[in-house]
């Protein structure tokens, strides 16, 4: 199989929900490769001494996050209807990982600029209202300076231009919001970075947190396809 050139590239869009949020990106890659193998699809393998199934993921998801918009690319050596690809994959993927669409890739991963997240947080010592108040206070500062770890150690960064929050709501015990953060290869901001900054700068650390990625967007705010 390793000596064939590939025929079609496929981008499979999937959800990662429920307990599988605790599997790391590395484990996810292995899990998906095994699923591709079990699917019986004519998957293209890398060339060379140790051929393996080739997969790439547009924007790796942080451990502990759920997502409704992940995507991975792989290649087939023969054309197959995309509905069949989707069906066959879902037959062999563990529950919680579900492909909702498969199609040829339209955009390059480099075109990713933003990602949206639904966030629910609880702080045991605060009501939802109390938490909302503190969060708004933090968010309303002209600058949101925090330390970000990069390849060359820690660096101070202002989150303000790379972050938007809306849908802020409180219920008796929780704070809910939608957060859009800069995403992609040049600058990637995880909501955790913002929430950690909030905790350090007069806020509180979440005792329970749920983060779900709901959209991956381009610079023009078009969905990544």
């Amino acid at each position, binding site marked *: 199989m390793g000596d064939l050139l590939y025929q079609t590239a496929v981008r499979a869009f999937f959800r990662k929900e429920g307990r599988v949020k605790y599997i790391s990106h590395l484990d996810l890659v292995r899990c998906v490769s095994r*699923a591709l193998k079990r699917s019986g699809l004519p998957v293209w393998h890398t060339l060379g001494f140790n051929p393996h199934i080739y997969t790439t993921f547009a924007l790796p998801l942080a451990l502990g996050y759920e997502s409704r918009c992940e995507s991975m690319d792989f290649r087939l050596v023969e054309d197959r209807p995309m509905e069949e690809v989707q069906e066959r994959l879902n037959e062999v993927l563990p529950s919680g990982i579900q492909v909702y669409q498969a199609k040829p890739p339209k955009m390059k991963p480099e075109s990713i600029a933003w990602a949206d997240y639904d966030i629910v947080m609880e702080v045991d010592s605060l009501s939802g209202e109390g938490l909302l108040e503190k969060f708004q206070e933090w968010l309303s500062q002209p600058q949101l300076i925090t330390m970000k770890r990069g390849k060359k150690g820690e660096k101070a960064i202002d989150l303000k231009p790379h972050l938007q929050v809306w849908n802020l709501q409180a219920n008796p015990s929780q704070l809910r919001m939608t957060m859009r953060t800069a995403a992609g290869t040049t600058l990637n901001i995880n909501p955790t970075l913002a929430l950690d900054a909030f905790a350090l700068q007069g806020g509180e650390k979440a005792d329970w947190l749920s983060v779900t990625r709901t959209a991956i967007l381009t610079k023009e705010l078009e969905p990544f396809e």
Partner: protein
Amino acid sequence: MENVQKALERVLLQVQRPARYTGGELGSIVKDPSQVQVRFAFCFPDLYEVGMSHLGMKILYALQNAREDCWCERVFAPGPDLEGLMREHHIPLYGLESFDPIADFDIIGFTLQYEMSFTAILNMLDLAGLPVRSSQREALAPIVVAGGPCACNPEPLADFIDLFLLGEGEELNMDLIDLYKACKQEGVSKKEFLRRAAQIPGVYVPSLYEVTYHQDGTIQQVLPRDGAPAVVHKRIVKDLDKVFYPENFVVPFTEAVHDRAMVEVLRGCIRGCRFCQAGFIYRPFREKKPDTVDKNAHALCDHTGYDEVSLTSLSTSDFSGLEPLLEKMLTWTEPDGVSIALPSLRVDNFSKELMDRVAAVRKSSLTFAPEAGTQRMRDVINKNVTEEEVLRTCRTAFEGGYTNVKLYFMIGLPTETDEDVAGIIHLAQKVVEEFYHTPNRPKGRGVNVTVSVACFVPKPFTPFEFEPQDGIESLRRKQKILLETVKSKKISVKYHDSPTSFLEAALARGDRKMCAMIEHAWRQGSKLDGWSDYFSMERWEEAAQACGIDLGFYANRSRSYDEVMPWDHLDYGVSKAFLIRENQKAHSDAATPNCRQHCSGCGANHLLGGACFG
């Protein structure tokens, strides 16, 4: 109280590799709890990555879940980081499939793979919120049961476990679940359930036996009560071609120690190496047909997507159908890119042809186990391998391109002299020389011989069950002899720690008086003793002292043939008379032929109701 899942979500991102604690793997089985009558928590008293490599658990998990009335879930010992958080946040030990607390299950079953996991069992019961002593668990549910190789001397756990399952689990577990289900419907007491369970062949209920002791601490007698049988016979499955074998495994997301498909090719062993407990307690020898193994392997690889399958058993090269099996398997493993692993090849029948066929798929490092350095010593332990055979095998390996050889040995064997110890290194040296005498050895590369040396631990149901273990001082001296005998940079020596072996020896042949000590050691913090990071010999010594136990009495004492052993009321097929005969032969340096050559009348054939071969 908040449910376990949400409570876990509050802490999981603070622990290493959280995917070990959340289940949901491919092949894991989730059922509707309202549709089952029996909930079974299969507990492996070690970390996830260790337990998930274990074949017995995979078989029983699939078998129990094949029953509509039963839901079997997996439970492992949490790592110290999660354990701390579970205790701090009052999160009870839960089943990986449902996240339900196992204290609410019907049956909690532990597998006893090694003595060093005993404290992990107590710790898991405690994390579940249950009293560790069975006398303090009054209700029928959960019943705490245990099986596996260490159940052959379960006495050190007698106060904690309600009943033990002796021998092979496939039929026995089904019988137990049937009885439990009936008793639950009937609403009987735990006491009555245990009384009835003791009537199932293979079930040992320790609370129904009274043990009395002589003044010197040895056992006087063991008396059954309430109609329990005087001797409990282990169970076996007679026909391996008909036995249930899983078509699917739970495939872990995170890597386990052995993360691959495994098929069992045979049970038992024909060899009779006198130090090897597995070689005796799994008798008699039974094989699957090559067709059965091939089908099992193919189904498993298709369902799991694994690209490696191992043919497992105590001695896979003794499988009589190995050549036809490999031929059959290669027809699909090669096109599917699946490699075949043969983990327990023996030095004395490792042919070049066989090696080539496995190497055709993947070449791995080569390991042999001569176990002892001199011919006399190998005769004593009945390891029927000659030096010539070791060297010939190594030459074949070198010709096949191997330059790394790992040799396994033991020190502290009965009748061992300093000469026998030095003989280990002499043998390794000869292997090095053999490399340079092999004309078509790999060019431009040197040879590496790793000598891995373990301390001998006398085990129940072996001809050496009567033998004293070598003392720690003596073992340390012998380790020094090993190092001093090495004269070549091409030989490296690795040895296991002697305190661990000492404790293992004491626990392996322990009796009920040890229960208090085990509980004490656990209360002082012993819980993952198999991991050197967490093991503390001082803690055990302190526990022994506090409970008036002399560990040396169990580890270093020589037993007379007529002493009542703590496990003498359990029958694993091999008779004590046979073990005594073998012990005597060992002391006269005499070997015993293997079961294929000649039946030595060990008694295990009674379990089959006929001869083992032919």
